């Protein structure tokens, strides 16, 4: 199983929705970190995402854009994405964020928006 530790491999302060919101945004996370890792997985392989190491918390804007954006912009369906990732945490309070991530993915409408990068805007 491939492992992706958000705090160590991406940022210890993930924040904001778009590139245009500043560093470590949900859009940056999705486009440059999560999506390439998910697409690289073999058919039956899963990506373990550690959400609680060196990270203090997440705002909804980051989580929606970072995770549900994959479904919203039509990269894959919610079910496909949920089948490819596993959210891991050792601090029980982070279950709140795991539930949020899964809820955002489940409720996102597949391919409901056309993606336009905000990089450099």
């Amino acid at each position, binding site marked *: 199983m491939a492992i992706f530790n958000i705090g160590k491999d991406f940022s210890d*302060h993930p924040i*904001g929705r778009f590139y245009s*919101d500043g560093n470590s945004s949900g859009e940056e996370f999705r486009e440059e970190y999560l999506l390439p890792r998910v697409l690289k997985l073999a058919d039956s392989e899963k990506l373990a995402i550690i959400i609680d190491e060196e990270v*203090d918390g997440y*705002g*909804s*804007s*980051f989580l929606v854009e970072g995770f549900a954006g994959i479904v919203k912009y039509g990269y894959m369906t919610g079910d496909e994405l949920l089948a490819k990732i596993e959210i891991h945490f050792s601090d029980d309070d982070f279950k*709140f964020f795991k539930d949020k991530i899964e809820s955002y993915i489940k*409720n996102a409408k597949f391919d409901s928006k056309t993606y336009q990068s905000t990089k450099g805007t």
Partner: protein
Amino acid sequence: MNKISLKRRNRDILRSLKFRKGRTYLLRKRNIEAKRELLDRNNQTILDYLQSKVLAGVNLYIDGKMRVRLTLPKVMNLSSEYENTVNHMLLLRKIAEYNKKGNNSVKLAGVDFNELTNISTSAALLLTAELSRWDDSNRSRIVPKIETWQPNIIIKFWELGFFELFQNIKPSEHGITAKPKIRLVKYIKGRIKENDYRRLKSNLRELIGADIDQWMFLHSGLDEAITNVTHHAYPSNCKIEERDQNWYLTGAFNTDTKELKVVFLDQGIGIPNSLPASKMYEKVLDWLKKFPISERKLHKKLLEAAVSVERTQTAEEDRGNGIPDMLEFIKQRKEGYISIFSQHGLFKLTIDAVTGKEVIKTESFKAPICGTLIIWKVQL
């Protein structure tokens, strides 16, 4: 009923003020009237504004060179002295904007802190932000003379980092060493698109001597407040200059009562003004339909509508102001309150520690907060 003349009306107002507020107000008003002839018509409006603030209770004096000296009141507190506190900030903002347009007939000579004996953390951050804005936009720097300030006020502003706006001012040189019961974290200022406030957590931990339970939920709320600043507080068509598009953050801990307060401020257009451009505006209008038309434009109602609509949004409708994230900290702790002051309105959600009941309070104000101020208060 006879229609009264303007002259008569003005006389009546002056007489009622004389009896209501004493002679000081009349003297201040006359001080402004005496300066009128020194200014041309274009500059009269600033005098009208100063006069309106004097009538609202602001203590100011204009000298012969048309320089304004503002004296802060004894108490500055957004809970008990809201209008008077905010009116002093507004006056600073007005003169700064007047000078920025190239009008220099009236200038700010100084802000007198001598009478100030008590200031809340939120008011201190608001005042610091206003003077920082002044400092960013005006070449004429104000230098505080702290020799005559109350020691507790010096310490409060020192801890807040207020004196870093100025050079070479050290309270220790004035014999101020005692630690107050309300300890403050040095304020953090960020520009739009800047989002690093991690120092707050470590600084608060230093003050408190322990970690804060459920910090992650406050962290989420602050993340959303900052993201909000970029998305909504300073839209591209707003008239606020880029250098003034900032946010401010501080925290305070009462060592006696163990109360923690975290205060976040932006100086943007405010939530009520940002709603029409928001994707949830239609739902806000729907929510407001249950109230009389006269109430629908009140900022307190717009704030309540924004909170209510966002709290009932589904996960798919993901483009709100992040308000639910801001409420989560006190919901998870099951006690405390969050106050959201924006423009002329207040929305406050309190959770009773004993019953766990949520109580919502809204309020309208005459004087606006120029931006949005969010206060979280919990008991540790």
